[in-house]
């Protein structure tokens, strides 16, 4: 198959979970909220009820699980926040060449470490990239916080999201390699 179009956000996961939209998330609190809603909506609660109730509950339970899945992932969370104010995330500005070069170099280093079975080097790379991802996340958090819903001030942040995606993909790759080594 074919070209993947970027993710399209249909529901507002913040609204689904009854949360104020924000990039900064109190994860344990959101987890509890997800659990409370699941308590009320999980299909197991509606066995033996009419099919209209079962269907309504199932649809909501799925929505609640989807909202939680999206919000706990910083990239998805940022996508949601951008699309809430109508900033398209499917037409991203080109990533800066300097950053791309860096990613290429990181990937090369990872490939070499993998070939050499150098677990220490892999861990060093992943620690460094994870730290950068956290830095980007805090920049995004600040940006979202100070810009509020101001589109013009939010637009420049989209580039940060693009970078975060690259770093996340790199970390996914590291995890896959670690799993292979195990």
């Amino acid at each position: 198959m074919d070209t993947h179009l970027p993710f399209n956000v249909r529901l507002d996961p913040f609204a689904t979970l009854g949360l104020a939209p924000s990039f900064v998330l109190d994860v344990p609190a959101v987890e509890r909220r997800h659990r409370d809603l699941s308590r009320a909506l999980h299909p197991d609660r509606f066995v033996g009820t009419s099919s209209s109730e079962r269907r309504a509950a199932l649809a909501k339970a799925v929505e609640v699980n989807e909202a939680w899945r999206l919000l706990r992932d910083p990239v998805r969370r940022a996508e949601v926040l951008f699309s809430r104010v109508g900033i398209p995330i499917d037409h991203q500005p080109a990533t800066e060449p300097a950053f791309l070069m860096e990613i290429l170099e990181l990937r090369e280093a990872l490939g070499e470490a993998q070939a050499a079975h150098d677990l220490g080097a892999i861990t060093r790379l992943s620690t460094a990239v994870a730290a950068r991802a956290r830095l980007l996340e805090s920049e995004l958090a600040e940006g979202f916080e100070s810009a509020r819903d101001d589109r013009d001030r939010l637009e420049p942040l989209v580039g940060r999201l693009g970078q975060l995606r690259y770093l996340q993909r790199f970390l996914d790759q590291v995890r896959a390699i670690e799993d292979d080594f195990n």
Partner: protein
Amino acid sequence: MPLLEIFDPKAPPRPIGIDLGTTHSLVAYVRGGHPRVIADCDGELLLPSVVAYGPAGVLVGTKAKLQACDSPRDTIVSVKRYMGRGADDPETRRLGPYDFAARGEAQSNVVRFQVQGTTLVTPVEVSAEILRTLKRRAEDELRSVGGAVVTVPAYFDDAQRQATKDAARLAGLDVLRLLNEPTAAALAYGLEKRQNGTFAVYDLGGGTFDITVLVLDQGVFQVKATGGDSALGGDDMDRAIAQEIFEQLGPHTEPALVRRILDDARGIKHALTESEEVEREVLGRAVRITRPRFEALVAPLLGRTGAVCRRVLRDAGVRGADLDGVILVGGATRVPCVRAYVRELFEQEPRSDVDPDQVVALGAAIQADLLAGQGVRDDVLLLDVIPLSLGLEVGGGVVDKILPRNTTIPAAARAQYTTQEDRQTGFEIHVVQGEREMVRDARSLARFTLKGIPPMPAGLAKLEVTFRVDADGLLSVEAREQTTGIAQLVQVKPSYGLDDATVEKMLLEALDHGEEDLVERQLAQNRIEAHRILASTAKALEADRALLHAGEELCIANAMEALTKASKGNEPALMHARMDALDLVSKAFAERRMNRAIALAIEGRRVDEVASEVSS
């Protein structure tokens, strides 16, 4: 008075929980608020998962096991390892005494055992024999058996789950839910101990390994991460010992001998739990295996479980030492070096104070009781996850992950694609499961083509693919071309499973009286369903009359009356139509009730708390 209940010919159907294991299977139910395993007439709790096909018919359990050495090809042991697997799967070519039928031209790629010379049976049919035996065992004790919860390894993929569900249907069971084994164990354990916290369940069974990390919080059992190996278990320890015996005796391949030596190997493994050294006479020669030698043999197997455990701990974001407990499940965790390994891995003493052979069945019984609405514990809820990422093949043989592993179910996700070529009129859709980046390393679940799209320039067509995973962990995929609205929905099963028609046919053949019986059964089931719906609608009306819109109550009352009337008749189709009608008129009301439930949950209050506030 339980006696009265047992002899009451109109005893209400009782829900049961079934642990369909690799080496043995159990059935349990809840009595007086406590789960218990049902024994057979000899007082045995464990039914060996062995099915023997003989000239006089089918034997299941101990009797089948006794003749395994005499007719190894006709006696299927550890059938669970073949569930949902293809005929060309490496698992089917491992050390074992069976004859497999060659894959026919038009047949789906499913394993077929050749028994009694020419008869072909699939793993689904073999498993159905075991389930039927358990069902009869339960009927002997309970008279009437209601729905069943059947457990599966958490790491079972979609095809393996579907095969298990088919087997249960074939055995005439009404499947309330497929439940993951570690989650079932946690349920039995957690309710017993009443302790909140984060726990790991290390489940090493006869043929499968699961590791699950879950949080228990006020009755909610939420799985954080799960992993495993659906082809790793106590059987592999036996195989390792058997290889060692063959090394001492020289190679043998006769099926009867392979079976015998595998049995001897199991005996040696069990004996080594107590002794430091075991000597057995095999084929007239003494074979000696010491515990250190055995431990060296199984070390690679344990290493494999350790790798999976480390991955799952990382996914769950916890360290072994931080866990509030590690629970051992499965007979293979009785082996001392397994315990020692787990202790070292998680830096704490694992627990096994609920019988590791029974705990899964006990948990299944509790869940069956909850789902049948008979349990008093409506504060208990299981939130499980998908064990393996689900995705689609995109250009270049790459997997595009749609639902990542450890996503809470029920779940849904959508992805959009477009065409790469001008005038492309079809989309090739390939559904895969697994963690690897390339399709060639993933498990292929289904392929289908969405056809009939009018020719458009590349990039104009918009294909939306929706993945849905239900509470059983089963996947369905819907593809829709959005500019034309052409859609196709597939229940994912064709690659390795049996299609619905085949299951229906088998079901009919299995029933003694064929079609008439089936109609009768359907009628009875529809009646029960109608009564349930009527009762629950009445309850909903009672509870939330305030949410009704003008005129709605009358519509619903009319539809209820029509259904009541139909349920007294003998027409399943009419009953269905009336149920659908009631469904339609109460849809908006149901949605309003759901929205209110959400609002209450968000306020942090539960309906029962609100009710108690009102009444106090």
